């Protein structure tokens, strides 16, 4: 089977129109016979067949055009349509258009005779033909060399392929959680107060782009306050009803981090024998102290209730080293450093960044550092060290109106203190019923490491410090 292609009938022709098929479909054709009449950009030309056989298929009918090289008919085939070739390549076996005549190097004709030894004579002896040939070439306005032709390539070439590969690189699962955000999107998000975790990325590989952030910033939906991690100062979050699953069940896949947390909590809950001790702490002085302190300093240096709790716990642990310990394969390991884990709950994960050597830090330091840690964790910029080395942890759901709750110990700790909210209550003081601020805390304990009395005494110490909070200021 041989294809009949649109021939190049002039050097400037790019498409041709079929004027008249001189043979019908199914008719026999002999090589050399006129086959079709084609209109080029310059003239109407009768084109002969280059093969013999049955004209099995006419692909481009009369009146239609096709670019040079496109298949216009088939000879000797089975009549199935041939795929249209869209490229404008020069067909094989067709006469090449003549190259511009001035392409030849005129100098190869005759070199100027170099006889004279004095410089000036060369000009005089110059072969006029050389000069004339050069002049003709120049006047023709053409290039010295055959030109590459017009920039008519429509398909993407190899030249751009490398660039496109970069742009279109699919999202990789790198450390599970790293959000791809373009630099300008990140900057704009900060400027407009947009929470990137709420933004869906539409860029290559799921990257959040400038457009995505701009769209998010302009949304008419009630502004969503950033979801606070459970350990930072009290804020209320309002939730809107969300779309329900479309099917009976909507499967939410776990991220790697979520899966790990789930596994470790299960390990902790089911291997460490937990027992729990609750205490209610009078927080009036602590609240007042905090207020006075924050009035005196810059907003960026404000301390939270949690900061006070962290300090109190840390100081208490200096007196109860047996609480600052871990169960390790049948032995108890007492830790030298006091590193407090601060549980941070985000919508899709729970992480516990660690504030190291909390006993040696001032309230100011603790406030600053815990802010930074939590910020980093929220923005997914925390370093690995941030999550290592906890010896005791705190979990605060106080901002969610929770009276009290019990937390699961964060391995390898042996204790975790769950903080509830501060409530105004009627309390008895000196025989009178007066308003007081009360906060309920619950200590979860790994019973293998220490026992009820220690736990109670430890909690007592924490309570004492929080109720006489000046001790925390030092």
């Amino acid at each position, binding site marked *: 089977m041989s294809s009949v292609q649109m021939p190049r009938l002039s050097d400037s022709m790019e498409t041709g129109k079929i004027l008249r098929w001189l043979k019908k479909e199914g008719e026999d054709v002999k090589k050399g016979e006129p086959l079709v009449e084609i209109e080029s950009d310059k003239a109407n030309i009768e084109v002969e067949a280059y093969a013999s056989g049955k004209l099995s298929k006419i692909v481009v009918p009369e009146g239609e055009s096709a670019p040079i090289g496109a298949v216009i008919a088939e000879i000797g085939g089975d009549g199935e349509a041939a795929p249209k070739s869209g490229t404008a*390549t*020069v067909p094989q076996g067709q006469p090449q258009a003549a190259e511009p005549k001035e392409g030849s*190097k*005129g*100098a190869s004709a005759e070199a*100027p005779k170099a006889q004279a030894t004095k*410089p*000036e004579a*060369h*000009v005089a002896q*110059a072969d006029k033909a*050389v*000069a004339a040939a*050069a*002049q003709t*070439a*120049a006047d023709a*306005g*053409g*290039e*010295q*060399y*055959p*030109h*590459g*032709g017009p*920039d008519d*390539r*429509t*398909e*993407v*070439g*190899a*030249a*751009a*392929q*490398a*660039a*496109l590969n*970069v*742009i*279109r690189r699919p999202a990789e699962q790198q450390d599970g959680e790293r959000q791809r955000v*373009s*630099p*300008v*999107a*990140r*900057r704009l998000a900060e400027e407009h107060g947009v929470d990137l975790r709420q933004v869906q990325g*539409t*860029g*290559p590989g799921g*990257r959040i*782009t*400038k*457009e995505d952030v701009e769209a998010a910033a302009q949304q008419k939906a009630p502004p969503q306050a950033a979801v606070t991690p459970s350990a930072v100062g009290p804020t209320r979050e309002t939730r809107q009803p969300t779309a329900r699953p479309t099917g009976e069940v909507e499967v939410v896949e776990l991220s790697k981090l979520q899966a790990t947390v789930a596994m470790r909590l299960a390990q902790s809950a089911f291997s460490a024998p937990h027992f729990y001790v609750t205490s209610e702490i009078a927080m009036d002085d602590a609240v007042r102290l905090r207020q006075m302190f924050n009035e005196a300093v810059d907003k960026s240096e404000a301390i939270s209730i949690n900061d006070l709790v962290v300090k109190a716990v840390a100081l208490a642990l200096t007196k109860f080293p047996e609480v600052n310990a871990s169960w390790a394969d049948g032995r108890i390991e007492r830790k030298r450093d006091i590193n407090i884990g601060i549980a941070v709950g985000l919508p899709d994960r729970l992480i516990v960044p660690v504030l190291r050597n909390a006993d040696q830090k001032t309230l100011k330091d603790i406030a600053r550092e815990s802010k930074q840690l939590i910020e980093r964790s929220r923005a997914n910029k925390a370093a690995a060290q941030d999550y290592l080395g906890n010896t005791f942890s705190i979990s605060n759901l106080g901002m969610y109106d929770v009276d009290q709750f019990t937390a699961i110990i964060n391995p390898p700790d042996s204790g975790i203190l769950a903080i509830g909210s501060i409530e105004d209550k009627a309390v008895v003081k000196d025989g009178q019923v007066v308003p007081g601020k009360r906060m309920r805390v619950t200590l979860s304990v790994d019973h293998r490491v220490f026992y009820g009395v220690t736990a109670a005494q430890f909690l007592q110490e924490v309570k004492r410090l929080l109720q006489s909070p000046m001790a925390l200021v030092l």
Partner: protein
Amino acid sequence: MAVLAMRDALNQALREEMKRDESVFLLGEDIGLYDGSFKVTRGLMKEFGERRVLDTPIAEEIIIGTAIGAAMAGLRPVAEMMTVNFIMVAMDQVVNAAAHIRYMFGGGTKVPLVIRTPGGGGHQLGAQHSHSHENWFAHVPGLKVVAPGTPADAKGMLKAAIRDDNPVMFIENEGTYAVKGEVPDGEHLVPLDKNDVKRQGDDITICAHSRMLIVAMDAAAELEKEGISAEVVDMRALRPLDMAPAIESVKKTSRLITVEEGWRSYGVGAEIAARVYEEAFDYLDAPVARIGAAEVPAPYNKRLEKIAFPGKADVIVTAKALLGKN
């Protein structure tokens, strides 16, 4: 305003500077009697004589070396390297001598020299005749490198280069000698260290130079029809590299494509991208997209060559991809 072809704009520049300054002279292969293989030096030997338009043997080290020695002795030579492909034979003279002499001799002398040389491919001339080396020269302290893409810039920069006291690599392109453009009348000089915006736009920035400037402009015109507004920055000043217009543009559009006729790796685009990351990192919405020749020795076959060298289709598709429109 006159409309001139690139080669004629260059011819004018040479003629004007030779008239203006006796110490300016030309040397190169076939620039005199033959009027230059690309006709840039047409008519100059007839007008100025053999002393000032010197036809050299085919000896690249001589072309550059004698130019250097003449420059050190007080003349202002404009050497033509017939194509940039041949300059590799004389790289030692260009780098070790021309670029280093002033500095390594403690500033005791200077080399006011212009080396004019066309690069580029796309004419089925094969692997040894299709190179672009402006990035090699732009790498070398002591050289200045320019690559104008319009006849006006070509004339203005060639005149400025001849008046500059440093060795200047003046990069031309075989595919642009016939390109026409408006050239201002009168004394027209263009500084060697300023780039500019050749087409304003808001959605995406394209940095290009020499023949690729024309490709970028063509692509931008087509993108406009599809509602994409491209800003084209002409990177005609490569060393010193003027990044100011490009940076300003990227800060506006957040997206950048670089286009060059040389190979992509270690090319001009790599330097532009690095500078953009340094100076406008927080403004980028996507990594810089670099378009350069496919990394193969240039093939002879017409179609292979077409896809190996950047064309406007590449720029258009890349622009759309960068904007998330495929």
